[in-house]
């Protein structure tokens, strides 16, 4: 039981990392990774949203859509659930930490369009996870996302001061770096 949960968690964080192996959530990965501090803020907000959205969408599916036979509405329902969770997070962050709210600014609503969030919600249904598994899967996905986002941000801060040839400056070299990191993550294949 406990071993299964550990495997699920490690699988979501490392082996099937949402960004570098499944290529979900690339927009915030490229967009919010130019500064370490913002990346840390973004990753904590995403972790919160993803875990919560994963749980909420599971509950909506199991307790609302399935009893009513409306499974075919799940994508649009999940989008709505995610938007609500993001809005809720935005309100909480604005009240509790105005500074973080200022730093995250436009990125908070961006979580709504983070395909990793919708991806987790849909994968939970596809893999027939139960309540605890959905929560863990959501948290694992978020932890993996946060880890690579923060590491990538630290690396991009270093690349920003490197003598990169002009045609490759900025996003191009960032993409190449993301590709190299994805290569490295293939080393985890087969662990779980």
């Amino acid at each position, binding site marked *: 039981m406990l071993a299964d949960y550990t495997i699920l968690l490690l699988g979501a964080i490392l082996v099937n990392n949402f960004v570098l192996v499944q290529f979900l959530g690339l927009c915030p990965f490229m967009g919010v990774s130019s500064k370490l501090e913002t990346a840390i803020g973004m990753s904590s907000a995403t972790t919160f949203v993803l875990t919560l959205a994963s749980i909420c969408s599971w509950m909506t599916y199991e307790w609302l859509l399935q009893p009513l036979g409306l499974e075919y509405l799940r994508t649009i329902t999940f989008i709505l659930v995610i938007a609500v969770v993001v809005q809720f997070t935005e309100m909480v962050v604005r009240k509790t930490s105005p500074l973080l709210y200022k730093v995250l600014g436009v990125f908070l609503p961006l979580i709504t369009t983070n395909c990793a969030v919708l991806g987790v919600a849909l994968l939970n249904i596809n893999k027939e996870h139960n309540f605890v598994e959905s929560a863990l899967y959501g948290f694992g996905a978020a932890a993996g996302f946060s880890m690579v986002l923060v590491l990538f941000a630290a690396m991009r801060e270093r690349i920003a001061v490197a003598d990169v040839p002009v045609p490759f400056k900025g996003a191009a070299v960032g993409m190449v770096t993301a590709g*190299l990191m994805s290569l490295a993550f*293939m080393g985890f294949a087969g662990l779980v």
Partner: protein
Amino acid sequence: MAFLKVSSPHAHGPMSTGRVMRLVLMATIPGLVALTWFFGFGTLTNVLWASLSALAFEALALKLRKRPIAFYLNDCSALVTAFLLGIALPPGSPLWLILVGTGFAILLCKHMYGGMGYNPFNPAMAAYVLLLISFPVEMTNWLAPRGAVPASELLGPIDALLRSLGIGSAPIDGVSMATPLDILKQNDALLVDDLWAQTPQFGTVAGIGWEWVNLAFLLGGLYLLYRRVFTWHAPLSMLLAIAIMALLFNDGGSSASGGGALFNLFSGATMFGAFFIITDPVSSAVSNRGRVIYGALIGVLVYIIRAWGNYPDAVAFAVLLMNFAAPFIDHYTQPRTYGHKKPNAQEKA
């Protein structure tokens, strides 16, 4: 800067980049000799082709970027990358494989990031990982070591050249054999002791040949340590981490075992990685405390991927993963400079 008005006596720093790189090249000699003795001349042809192509790619990149070519070629950093890649590839690899590898290493991993001193990933290891994922058949085709096959089966100098160019008939192919790490990974029926007794590739503590190759790289590494090319922090913590992991997860040699501590320390690319790869000053962590963390995590990852992952040897993957984490480690392990508060202190407060 206030370094202009210093009075005599002036101490001259003897270590320039070129000198350090040439020392590293020299220190690979024992390892190269051991590899050649046990696996034939294939490694030398690897190194030869890799060196020639790396220098050509380096010159091309420098010309495109309008940098002084002779000045940068003189620092030998491209040669070091070539040597490391040539040693890591299976002996007698085909020329095209080596060309892809060095091209990727020099053009994409080094010069796209600004060249010498800026590459966030170790170019040789990034190229190795790329080749391993793209061409798994060529990359796992290791030749049998002396001792497991008669010496006449080893590649001679001419055979090795022909083989790398793809000319010649079947005998030149040599006898390929799984490496000890491969065998241990594939094994799911025999106890380790039985496997050891039945398979000709195993020697005293690790594979035949492999243990000597690792010893030779250890020797070269210790020479570099003695010449203070790098500090002891990263290599020691990596080796300790591998040993501790192997001891912790050693189940007494069942069929699922990942091998004991000595076996893991003297197998595959352990010593080569510990002294020649993770000590790369550019792509590793900078501070001593950072290097301890960096090396230890590489050791842990090496054991994890070896024991439970898909790939039998994990040094390249582990190094690449930690290259990725090195800037983050640096950010949180900045040493305090004399007379200043701890860096990042105001951020935490």
